[in-house]
């Protein structure tokens, strides 16, 4: 296979970026998309050029490090996977593939396709935890939790924090990301004590970081590699309203 990649190159956060076009030849369809980029980078290095910087680590879809816009879609053309899980069999010989970084005010570009997502950490920091110190926790089976609640909590907890929801949203909203965590703790007995402050603090932090609001387009759900449902957003809205009304 042979493809042409059109990639966003940007020296650093202060510089202006632009698209650069590179041909990549001798690709086999078993290769992952990143292995194709590795191949491109290897040839760039050999020519003494700087390789394309992109975020990646586990290459098995769980660490949430990778993320890029491929042909206008977050994590590429296939639903329910991260960019690192994308394989070249999903493209055709001769394709031109356009690759861009996540674009959102709250995710400034560091270099090429690498963006700074520490805004996500700062939201988590404002309340994405249950306050329990190490040691002294009650027996794990002391409080039974219905399988349904545990499953809903797990659905939210499976968020990998990649930022695809933000990148794909026309408002750059982080509602899916934040609601997945709020929801996880809202349905668990352990999360009840801090339930109100958690949703209030996390929503405040989300707004302060420059993320937009939700206008119910559901683009986030469609592009989430873990297929997290917008039902979590609905739950967060209820939680937020309840917390504010009850003072």
């Amino acid at each position, binding site marked *: 296979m042979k493809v042409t990649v059109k990639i966003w190159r940007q020296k650093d956060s202060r510089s202006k970026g632009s698209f650069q076009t590179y041909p990549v030849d001798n690709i086999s369809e078993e290769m992952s998309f990143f292995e194709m980029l590795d191949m491109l980078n290897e040839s760039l290095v050999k020519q003494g050029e700087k390789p394309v910087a992109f975020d990646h680590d586990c290459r098995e879809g769980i660490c*949430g490090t990778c993320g890029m816009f491929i042909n206008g879609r977050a994590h590429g053309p296939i639903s329910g996977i991260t960019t690192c899980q994308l394989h070249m069999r999903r493209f055709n010989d001769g394709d031109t593939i356009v690759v861009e970084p996540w674009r959102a005010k709250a995710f400034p570009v560091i*270099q090429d396709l690498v963006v700074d997502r520490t805004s996500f950490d700062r939201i988590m920091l404002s309340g994405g935890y249950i306050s329990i110190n190490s040691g002294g926790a009650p027996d*794990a089976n002391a409080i039974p939790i219905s399988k349904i609640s545990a499953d809903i909590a797990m659905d939210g907890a499976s968020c990998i*924090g990649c930022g695809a929801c933000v990148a794909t949203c026309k408002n750059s909203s982080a509602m899916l990301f934040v609601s997945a965590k709020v929801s996880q703790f809202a349905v668990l007995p352990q999360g009840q004590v801090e339930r109100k402050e958690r949703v209030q603090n996390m929503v405040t932090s989300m707004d302060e970081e420059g993320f937009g609001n939700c206008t119910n387009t559901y683009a986030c759900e469609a592009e989430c590699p873990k297929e997290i449902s917008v039902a979590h957003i609905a739950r967060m809205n209820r939680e937020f309203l309840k917390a504010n009304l009850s003072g």
Partner: protein
Amino acid sequence: MKLESKIPKGPLSEKWTSHKFNMKLVNPANKRKYKVLVVGTGLAGASAASTLAELGYQVEAFSYHESPRRAHSIAAQGGINAAKNYPGDGDSIYRLFYDTIKGGDYRSREANVYRLAEVSNNIIDQCVAQGIPFARDYGGLLDNRSFGGAQVSRTFYARGQTGQQLLLGAYSSLIRQMNTGKVKFHPRTELQDIVMIDGEAKGIIIRDLVTGEISSHAGDAVVLATGGYGNVFFLSTNAMASNGSAAYRAYKKGALFANPCFTQIHPTCIPVASGFQSKLTLMSESLRNDGRIWVPKKKGDNRAPLDIPEDERDYYLERLYPAFGNLVPRDVASRRAKEMCDKGHGVGSTKLAVYLDFADVIQRNGKNWVADKYGNLFDMYEEITGENPYKTPMRIFPAVHYTMGGLWVDYNLMSNLPGLYVLGEANFSDHGANRLGASALMQGLADGYFILPYTIADYLARTKAGKVNTSLPEFGKSENAVKENIRKLLSVNGKQTVDEIHKKLGQIMWEKVGMARNKADLENAIVEIPKLRKEFWADVRVPGSEDTMNTELEKAGRLADFLDMAELMARDALMRNESCGGHFREEFQTEENEAMRNDDEFTFVAAWEHTGDDSPPQMHKEDLVFENVQLTTRSYK
């Protein structure tokens, strides 16, 4: 040098309790005067950093990731062991201890392993309290499953994403402490050197991976929780950035490296598909609960799996090990898979694979039941291979997964360098020559939540707080050495990329220091590796400069250390004239091709000391004393 393991006296089950009482404490008002530097924020590092901060210490935490949530602990799929005995199937702390020490082929310390089993139950309690959504049954209680090397169900899990959930739990504790200001987190920073002041570890040098800035940080103690070195093989299940540099640089500063040859090859990985393969993907061991491993009885059988009738299939693990069947420990399952392929029974286009078949369980319990339990793994497999495992058996092959070896630590998890603690996969302490499934998560969290926070106090209480600052000449000297090394890497300006040389190293390691080793190959590796190291320093090409984000420079620095470590691994493997756990020497096997230990001569930990760049390392022995278990030949028949 005499190695003092500092194992407390007294009966096994009382050692940890009495040790906790006998250790010195730092009083609550004084804790805030001490600063601890924690390098690495995966399970072990994040749990340690958060717990230390909860206790009142000042903590600075460092990670080369943008966020602690990216650490490779996140990729652990199957589960975490604990001796809760909730299913009532006969489990106990003693049984978990026994299984772990036997699974490690009697090359770990009794006292450490017992303590691990002892605190395993606290971990589950802690995690549930953090809001980790473990799998539950319809009565609302926690569910368990089985893993290799055990005949009880003691593994707690959260779908196929247990590592993710545990890491996010530790991360949530850590960010809570970041929010209080007790933990200062330095994202995208990589350790370059450990700074020793008067023989004690008191600081580190780091490189900011975005700006390239080199800076010094001083503290009262240094904790390394920097993971394993499996990527020395280039292809492994480790994440791309996982590396051994922190441990190796500590080794160069005098820390001993223990059992470097103990590498775990995981039996169930997706086989290599192309020459440009960048990493290997694991399929959780939990699949062996319900999947059946087989190869065609006929050599070179090219029929599709579904066309091979039942009586022409060899379910070789069930045949060889009727008691444990498909759930034999990892080292045994891996070696048998390799043996089947070597004998010509391999499947798939490369013939380097065996089948893992779910047809029986799908017929017995239905597709939905299987999807509920393993759905994400099946999807992952299909995305990578283009084959649907609900319809056709998975193809699997062993791959490098975990390193049991690591920096030598005493019972307190302190290395031989005072003030330097090592946790999680980065140390050597608990898994002997083979780690059982679902035990890595257990160890990482045990070290971080429940062991280090006690033992570090014993050291800190004996030192004056804030004794050291970065204006001392040792810091400047170390910074200069680091900068010089970086300049050296950038100035080679050769013809080969970092990855090209890394692949060559990987090939030497896989062929000669891999799943089966022998004297001649190891001797050859000890010649080949230094040659390749020379080639690296003469011909590597690292473009760009040091003062920006430079991913090739990061990789080059890590490879330079791997090239040194590789030789150490080969030397250790050559020294160990026995087969045990993941270390299989072809010269030492029974008639049935099982590993043959040599307890008379090799019941010890080999701890290697760096003696200089041009002289061979020196080995020190820590004899392993077994007072509670009898050393027997492992049998899983």
